[in-house]
């Protein structure tokens, strides 16, 4: 299936074309070319999916890893080498579909949303760059290729968040996003170093084959600080994943990243890039299970905590994009938990399937939510809930699609979220009741904050709008409709037939007990939200006042930004950088200068000897002769 390589090449060609030609291209032309390029990639992806899942993928009833393309890129020494290639397996093909679909929708949507913006060509160029990076990431044949595209994804995300580069907040947000993920990537890199050093390969095929026996045999020993090499490596890899997927405590960049254009948020910070961490863990899953199971526990707990933490914060936010951002964090944490509680093979691997399933469904409905939010913002020119309300009359399409997405994320059947969430809950239930309980609560909270959002945008009292809000143009609402349709139907896919931890299809039925529990809690959440927010009232304010302390803390995101601010500004900058800069200028440089000054001083000190008086000279002469004579005799 060598053609798959074009899925990746088309966007990069688009990027080069659009960015180099931006001066000569009309904005509209550039947008259309970019979108067309993406459409090509999308079609190719669909074709790939078809070929893979229905024609070529299965070998002996198991979905195999097919290396569709590979070429050596860089060699390190005799053993290690980085290849660039295309690896097809269920999750990468699934990701191809998700990424291209969402990306295409975002491209389309952006044609309308970004109309008239300065740098329209640049915007589409960067979207292509991002798509390229993300696609390269998911089809990576080896961990280093993944790392390479991982970095590229980070960079294109940086550029897109900072698209409005004249806005200081956007610049700060983009910087923060890049640096936080970069910091996490450091873990990823060191993890790769440890992993490759021990196993002697970067290749996913070798690393994950035979229940990761390679890693198990080479890495279980060699402890450092009491932990085995495998534990170190896999924890560090998870650190990278956590950074990209905004797990606590590395989540702080994601809410700020909402400074970027909304379609970008939809593409990068909801559907694709942020799930890269989940994808990484899924990709390395056999190693986690067999070589470092304790790290899986870590993942579970970090995930569960993040899910709850982000959900609580989401309740208090007033910026609609930030609500969605925290919701994203929470939902990705869900996926992480699902991976954490999963085992390998068959039903034990249900969590794995569930995680991927949720990734799949979440991509669509979250993209839909963001795009819908974008349409709203487009209409009212504000992100704040304060400035919205009663918009359902003005924006019917947006309203309906948004509602569908809200229902999906709340886990209400028959929308897609219900199916994937149910599967996660059931996997968690089988693994650990406590985790299940947490997730269950989070499900309720999710429903609550989503409907809080929904009501505050579309219901409640109408604000006085400067300009009459109006429905988005067709180029914007068509993607909404497409995504809404997908949200409605994609839950019905027999996902476990395609994606499973060991490649062998199995059927995961719906656990009705758990399903009903989750639906109940979802409905409860919706009901509470309806009570609070459907009509404008002082109920929310009173409730907030009741738990003022907690509410305050939550709305300040539990001061995590401040903590990080403290660590970076106060500790790193003030206690490391400033002293080093000072040390360098004064101590090191001072020493070097002091050598010069000392020489000068010495010169100054001996100057009077040269008094200009002949007799002094003679005296020195005679004394020197005498001293030398004595010295020679003494020797």
């Amino acid at each position, binding site marked *: 299936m060598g053609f798959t390589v074009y899925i990746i090449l088309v966007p990069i060609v688009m990027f080069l074309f659009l960015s180099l030609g931006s001066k000569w291209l009309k904005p509209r032309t550039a947008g259309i070319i970019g979108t067309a390029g993406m459409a090509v990639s999308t079609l190719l992806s669909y074709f790939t999916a078809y070929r893979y899942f229905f024609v070529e993928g299965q070998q002996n009833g198991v979905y195999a890893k097919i290396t569709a393309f590979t070429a050596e890129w860089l060699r390190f020494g005799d053993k290690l080498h980085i290849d660039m290639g295309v690896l097809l397996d269920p999750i990468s093909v699934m990701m191809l579909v998700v990424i291209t679909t969402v990306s295409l929708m975002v491209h389309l949507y952006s044609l309308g949303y970004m109309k008239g913006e300065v740098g329209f060509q640049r915007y589409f160029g960067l979207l292509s760059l991002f798509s390229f990076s993300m696609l390269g990431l998911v089809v990576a044949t080896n961990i280093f290729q993944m790392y390479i595209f991982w970095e590229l994804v980070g960079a294109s995300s940086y550029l897109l968040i900072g698209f409005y580069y004249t806005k200081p907040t956007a610049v700060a947000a983009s910087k923060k996003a890049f640096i936080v993920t970069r910091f996490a990537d450091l873990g990823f890199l060191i993890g790769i170093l440890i992993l490759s050093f021990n196993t002697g390969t970067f290749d996913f095929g070798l690393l994950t084959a035979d229940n990761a026996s390679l890693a198990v045999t080479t890495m279980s020993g060699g402890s450092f600080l009491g932990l085995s090499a495998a534990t170190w490596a896999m924890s560090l890899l998870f650190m990278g994943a956590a950074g990209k997927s905004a797990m606590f405590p590395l989540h702080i960049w994601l809410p700020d990243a909402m400074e970027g254009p909304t379609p970008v948020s939809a593409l990068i910070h909801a559907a694709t890039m942020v799930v890269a961490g989940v994808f990484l863990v899924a990709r390395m899953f056999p190693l986690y299970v067999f070589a470092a199971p304790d790290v899986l526990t870590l993942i579970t707990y970090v995930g569960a905590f993040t899910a709850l933490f982000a959900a609580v914060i989401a309740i208090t936010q007033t910026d609609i994009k930030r609500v969605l951002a925290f919701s994203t964090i929470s939902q990705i944490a869900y996926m992480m938990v699902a991976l954490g509680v999963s085992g390998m093979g068959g039903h034990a691997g249900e969590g794995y399937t569930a995680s991927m399933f949720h990734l799949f469904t979440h991509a669509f409905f979250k993209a839909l939510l963001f795009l819908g939010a974008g349409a709203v913002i487009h209409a009212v020119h504000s992100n704040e809930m304060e400035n919205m309300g009663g918009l359902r009359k003005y924006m019917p399409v947006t309203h309906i699609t948004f509602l569908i997405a809200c229902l999906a994320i709340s886990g209400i059947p028959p929308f897609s979220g219900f199916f994937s969430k149910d599967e996660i809950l059931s996997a968690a239930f089988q693994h650990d009741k406590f985790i299940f309980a947490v997730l269950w609560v989070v499900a309720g909270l999710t429903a609550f904050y989503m409907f809080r959002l929904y009501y505050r945008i579309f219901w409640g009292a109408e604000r006085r709008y400067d300009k009459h809000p109006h429905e988005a143009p067709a180029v914007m609402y068509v993607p909404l409709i497409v995504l809404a349709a997908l949200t409605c139907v994609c839950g019905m896919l027999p996902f476990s037939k395609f994606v499973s931890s060991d490649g062998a299809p199995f059927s995961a039925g719906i656990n009705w007990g758990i399903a009903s529990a989750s639906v109940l809690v979802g409905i409860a959440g919706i009901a509470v939200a309806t009570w609070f927010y459907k009509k404008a009232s002082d109920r929310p304010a009173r409730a907030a006042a009741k738990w003022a302390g907690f509410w305050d803390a939550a709305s300040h995101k539990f001061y995590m930004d401040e903590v990080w601010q403290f660590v970076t500004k106060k500790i790193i900058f003030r206690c490391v950088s400033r002293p080093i800069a000072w040390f360098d200028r004064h101590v090191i440089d001072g020493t070097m200068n002091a050598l010069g000054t000392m020489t000068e001083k010495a010169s100054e000190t001996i100057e009077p000897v040269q008094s*200009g008086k002949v007799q002094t000279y003679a005296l020195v002469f005679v004394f020197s002769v005498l001293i030398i004579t004595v010295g020679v005799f003494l020797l």
Partner: protein
Amino acid sequence: MIPMEHYLIVSSIMFFVGVYGFITRKNLLAVLISIELILNSVEINFSVFNRYLYPEHMEGMFFSLFGIAISAAETAVAIAIIINVYRLANNIDVRHIDKLKH
């Protein structure tokens, strides 16, 4: 016969007196005279060594002769320069010729 050591003692005293004089005298002429003392002590040494230790050759004596001649030339040049110094600076205090220093 006077022992050789006596000559050497005298010449050493002359030498060091000359050195001392060179270092302490104020008058340039006195300084010049001190130099003559040093040179003369050397000439005594040469003569004495020749006469007492190596009487078969005349090297030491010749050296003394040349030394005397050269010191005369030296004095001539020195006095010429001292006169010039006097003309320009109006004194011949050796301590005052210290314009060039450091």
